[in-house]
């Protein structure tokens, strides 16, 4: 059995102490060691984006980071997006605009959009489409995802002003 390392992760405001092999991806650590299975694995080579999570507020592929690298970082996954029972504006917009079908890619898209909007709440429609081209969806044909993110961005800007 290869050596394991004791690592402490901060995920969605909670602390997880895990003992993991260095080769274990952050995605596998989140899913199998932290029990946060909302982060999905679709390709494990960084193309599909189903595993996208926020690390220090930046959306990253959790299949391309090792769990040991997340020590000392702040990780946010789809499970940390809603405020209790209140859906995040992105989740609400995905729901209302049919931005998901099978739901497998959805957590990755939500975290991608959440991170990008955090960096730039005023993204243009073109910017939004460019950012969303980062992840693959096989069900929706994307247009409702694009629409949902546009509407959520508007809603989030309105709330910030209010």
């Amino acid at each position, binding site marked *: 059995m290869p050596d394991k390392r004791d690592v402490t992760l901060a995920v969605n405001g909670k602390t997880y102490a895990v003992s993991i092999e260095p080769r274990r991806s952050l995605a596998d650590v989140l899913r199998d060691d932290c029990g946060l299975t909302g982060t999905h694995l679709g390709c494990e080579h960084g193309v599909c984006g189903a595993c996208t999570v926020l690390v220090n507020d930046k959306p990253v592929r959790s299949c391309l980071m090792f769990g040991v690298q997340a020590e000392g970082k702040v990780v946010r996954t789809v499970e940390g997006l809603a405020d209790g029972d209140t859906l995040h504006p992105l989740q609400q917009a995905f*729901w209302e605009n049919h931005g998901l079908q*099978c739901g*497998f890619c959805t957590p990755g898209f939500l975290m991608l959009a959440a991170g990008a909007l955090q960096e730039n709440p005023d993204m243009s429609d073109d910017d939004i489409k460019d950012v969303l081209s980062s992840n693959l969806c096989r*069900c929706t*044909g994307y247009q409702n995802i694009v629409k949902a993110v546009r509407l959520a961005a508007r809603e989030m800007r309105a709330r910030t002003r209010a």
Partner: protein
Amino acid sequence: MNWIGRRLPRLEDPALLKGGGSYVADRASKAAAVCFVRSPVARGTIVDIEIPSDGIIFTGRDLVDVKPIRPILHRPDYVAIGQPVLPVDRVSFCGQAIAVVVADDPALAEDVAEQVFVDIDVADAIIDFEAALALDATPVHPDAASNVLVEGRMRTQGLDKAFADAAEIVTLDVRSHRQSAAPMENRGGLAEYDAASGRVTLTASVQMPHMLRTGIADTLGMPESDLRVIAPDVGGGFGQKMSLFPEYVVLVWLARKLKRSVAWIEDRRENLLASAHGRDQAFSLRGAFAGDGRLLGLDADLRSNIGAFSCYPVTCGVEPLMAFAELPGPYDFAEYGVRSRGVTTNTCMMAPYRGVSRPTLTFSMERMMDVAAKRLGIDAAEIRRRNLIKTFPHRSPTGLVYDEGSYLQAMEVALDAADLPAFRERQAAMRERGQYLGVGLSVFSERTGYGTPAYAARGMEIVPGYEIVDCSMDPSGDVVLRIGSSPHGQGLKTSLAQLVSDELGIEPQRIRIISGDTDATPYGWGTFASRSMVIAGGASKLAAGKVAVKLKTIAATLMETSPDNIELKDGWARVSHSNQAMEIGALARAAYHQSHRFKGLLPGLHESAVYDPGGTFSNACHVAMVEVDIETGGVRIERFLVAEDAGVLINPMIVDGQITGGVAQGIANALFEEIVYDDTGNLLTASFADYLPPTAAEIPEIEIMHMETVSPESVTKAKGVGEGGAIGAPAAIVNAICDALSPFGIELFELPATPQRIREALRRAGVATYA
């Protein structure tokens, strides 16, 4: 309030949005990990498999008692081929599982799998299916006389005359390259062994849980009652997750052998290499046209590469026989000759993929119409007007009966919305500036929601088609619907809840739908072939209708009126033309707790219904507007319009979602995705860096219009809509590309029309990029 026709946000979504979905991998972390050792070569004899001394490893020799997967068609032209779950003597395609490793976690399982050394005496593989058809080709399967495993033929009597009478004969050779459905969630299974009962529960990412149970039980020779199959949340399927794959048989075998829980979560490389492919077809068409553009007759030679094995249960006949039967599509002509062959090669198995043969056959027919129109000097829309089916029911040359549709109207609606005159003006102006715009049409029929007669006609030993639904209202008035269908992302639970709501007069939120668990649902066929809304929907409506009749009888008894006077709506049973009403919950309680008061009624509210329809044809017209960059071969889709007739829309939002998603896969088919093997059968597209599903940047906004032809062939009045988007888009896009390139006389007949292929055609036409 009526629920049918409303854009109700899906009941499925809140959990999926919060990371609360439960896919098979989410349940697998406690189980031992399974990894398959796969063949690195396409064809050869297994000389030896050296396995490391430490590790749990099994090979085909350990599974000799397991029967091969051997689907049957009862046709004289069908050759049944067995697929060993793990082969003992020979390998038949690159990626075929040849040994299985069990370890504590997936990384360790891969470590062990790397230590398994397989000595294979490599033979020349047959990859190209045209080569496989050569008379002197070595059979891929030694027990088959040739590489043709299924062949459909027919020829109407007047075909020769049609060609003799023709003013114009259009000949074309169409090639559709191989694709993968590539659902975002790969395959995967978790087999859990229950020591107390000896039963195994297989949780798997599948579309047909009951069929999987039967198939595995037959293969392993175990009672079906010892196996429970669960399809949890499934991350897309598109047909790829229909078939019985060897991996699932091995998982159940392992759980029983080791008496422990084991899980295999497929990775993307395996999915592209060894799951299932589709669309690898070559069609040669000859169309006999009258001078006025009418199609008099069609003669077709259709070849489908079915890969190394026949998929269970639909068999390798699924592509060739659908092409055989449905090639005539939306066009009204009588004379038809066809030879359609399924050809085996040393490549990954072909299985259904959204649309099955119809993207290729629609592409073929629609290219033919455009070529004929140009030759005859008729407008592309006009030649279709002259040939589309206009009277119903229509009987095709192959005997298919089309119910009422709107082939012509759908095209006119789409053309109006596209504003072709304005487009042609802009096209001409931009051509002056060296920019090439084009518009393309695609009109097609989509046979959907067909029951047992359609499958029986294919000679299938296993004849799918019907659906059974159990509908129970509990004493509080809430409903549980147990369905044999097995949705995997389509939002079927929401749509069914809307249907049942209108039958029973209660809100959709009070209807719970149970699917994908063979212990908890009636035997059913799952979700595929654009069938669930029609068939599971029909059975749901019928079952709920029976409960409604009972509720009305109870209400009539309690309110001393006739059942005909009762209306179920908004949670209440109301007596017409009076103020009298009772809550449906109170009626339900009475049905269970006061059953002695209702003479002639059985206690409770539990009904079952079966629906097995003949089938119904949806139809649509797609219009694509593209710009082709003649220097790079790049294609930008400017607009994409769909006029769709799927009958009555239960939830228009969900229907639109099916269309946009289908069109995106059609665009992928038209421009991007291609599975490529080298000459030795080695896969060159084993990652998403080389196999290219399009992103949000490549997919335009899809403009959708609806026709709603009410069909008597569907009790819900809904027609299927799952595949149409994927079926129509490739033809519309390539027709548009050819229209854009018409100044150069370029006609393309190959899918996908990659930038490289477009440039090649331009180069042949003498259009250089600064050469």
